[in-house]
């Protein structure tokens, strides 16, 4: 190879690198727009007035006369505030109960020795493979038979346990060295105190992850609330928005509907932006959607 060959290779290398970079960024930006566009559109639509929205045969990309009218409508003409409070109550209680139940179980599996531990744990793991669609039918019957339709108990009870979170916490608890437990025992600490004073603080990152994942799950749950409630007083945001879509606002008031959508979407997005790292890490550790 002589000088000119080298020059040619150099030039080709530099050019192909530039092209690759441009293509990559273009592609990534295109998908970013695809992701963001629906969010933009929902905010945009929510601040257009009903009449201006309906007069735009060809939709406009900006709102010429932005209004908060739709947000007021969303809270006054449909019980959006009710759905919202219900969801918060449901989410908080379910998450709290879930936390108590899973932490206790994970502690037993990770720290205590008892006969049949392995068998029980294997059975627990086997349950992870059961799709919720299978058990929901009977749960529907059970809750109906117990007369708990249209109650918070009915909404919450079947949503409490998650084998996956027990598994996740157990793995984390087991990483705490035995010596700490022995030291605590020597000092006369009870198991429960050891759990609350030592294990939980040490495993706080995982616990926070579990809590956030559960909150997301609760906030988005649709199937169960839809099955178990037909009284609007107990609707959550998911079936609430569906109700708004089908029977709300009288005429097809799309801007008002979008205002409701924005209100429902904001809490989780804010939560996500605050705990971005934790959420993404937690999800990649094994949480699938739904």
């Amino acid at each position, binding site marked *: 190879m002589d*000088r000119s060959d080298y020059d040619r*290779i150099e030039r080709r290398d530099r050019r192909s690198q530039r092209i690759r970079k441009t293509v990559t960024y273009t592609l990534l930006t295109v998908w970013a727009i695809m992701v963001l566009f629906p969010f933009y559109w929902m905010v945009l639509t929510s601040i257009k007035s009903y009449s201006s929205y309906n007069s735009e045969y060809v939709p406009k990309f900006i709102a010429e006369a932005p209004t908060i009218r739709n947000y007021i409508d969303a809270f006054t003409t449909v019980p959006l505030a009710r759905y919202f409070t219900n969801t918060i109550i449901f989410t908080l209680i379910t998450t709290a109960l879930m936390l108590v139940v899973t932490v206790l179980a994970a502690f037993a599996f990770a720290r205590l020795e008892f006969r049949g531990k392995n068998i029980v744990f294997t059975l627990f793991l086997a349950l992870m493979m059961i799709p919720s669609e299978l058990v929901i039918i009977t749960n529907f019957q059970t809750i109906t038979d117990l007369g708990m339709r249209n109650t918070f108990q009915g909404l919450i009870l079947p949503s409490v346990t998650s084998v996956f979170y027990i598994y996740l916490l157990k793995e984390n608890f087991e990483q705490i060295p035995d010596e700490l437990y022995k030291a605590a025992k020597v000092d006369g600490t009870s198991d429960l105190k050891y759990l609350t004073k030592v294990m939980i603080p040490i495993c706080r990152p995982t616990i926070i992850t579990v809590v956030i994942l559960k909150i997301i799950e609760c906030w988005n749950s649709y199937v169960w609330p839809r099955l178990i409630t037909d009284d609007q007083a107990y609707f959550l945001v998911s079936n609430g928005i569906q109700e708004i879509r089908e029977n709300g606002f009288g005429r097809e008031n799309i801007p008002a509907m979008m205002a409701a959508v924005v209100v429902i979407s904001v809490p989780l997005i804010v939560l996500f932006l605050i705990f971005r790292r934790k959420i993404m890490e937690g999800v990649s550790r094994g949480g699938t959607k739904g």
Partner: protein
Amino acid sequence: MEVTLQNLTKIFPSRNRKSKESVTAVSDFSLTIPDGKLIGLLGPSGCGKSTLLNLISGLEKPTSGRIFFGGDDVTELPPEVRGVGLVFQNYALYPHLTVLQNILFPLENLKGDKKLTKQQMLEKANEAASLVQISEYLERKPSQLSGGQQQRVAIARALVKMPKILLLDEPLSNLDARLRLQTREELRRIQRETGITTIFVTHDQEEAMSISDMIVVMKEGVLNQIGRPQDVYDEPVNLFVAKFLGTPPINVFRGRVESERLMIGNESVLEVKGVSDREVWIGVRPEGFIPCENGTLTCAQTAIEVMGRDMTVVASHPDCENANIRAIISSEMKVCESAKEARFDLKPNKTFIFEAGSGERIACGPVPLA
């Protein structure tokens, strides 16, 4: 293939957004490596030797300076057209491919008139495999091999395409002590047999000294000294090089020159003609001590370690930088084990004098006191 590095500099922008500091990994580095030699690139960890290797291989582009292979300027060339073989510290064998597939991998990449037939590839792969003596493991996966065997596969993979230059990044550091000794001789043999210019990076001075034709000592991205191992050992250019080479390490004393006499504490140990008065560092190789009843340097003796062939007098001195002075002397010498005091004369050719500030060697021929 002769390799020439000309004023090579590599500056990494800072990773941390908060600190604006950039890191200069290699600084104004010039060096010519003669054809067919085995070169040891030596320095403490973080001194930029791996970066230098990446610059030569083309994985990194220098910030400034040029690289020549033979007469060709390859500075801007991508790695694949440079014709270098590279062996990684952790071998980087593809875990999903067998040994044979790993070795064939570089050959399958050849394009155009260099393209080989399947038969030719197999021949070359077998040749490389037998050179590093792994022919019997060709069908295994890397995970089924020991560390030493993986190392050989990595070398075979680097050699199979007949590179102009072979680069090895800490090739022995993942092996246990016994294997390391064996493999380094193996490396020497393979290099001799192939005659490929080979540069290997290490932080282990013993490793570098034992097999290299030439060693290159660098510190903080700067070339300190280059030369045959013995030459560098015998004539270090500065305190850093003197301290870096040799086990046990050189003994360093604070001292000064007073009217052409070299002083440690109140004792004058050697005569240094033509050196003006100043503060200095005095480095004495362990083999540079001669026990002598009325020797010029008085130390407190702590222990005698007998090794058989020779022995070590362990001593201390208030002006010595090292916690312990180690003097290696022939076991035929008579020393008193229970003595509280040890007195030595210093061998002039094993004693080096450095500027107190810069650590640069002061060129002078010290002679014993008259």
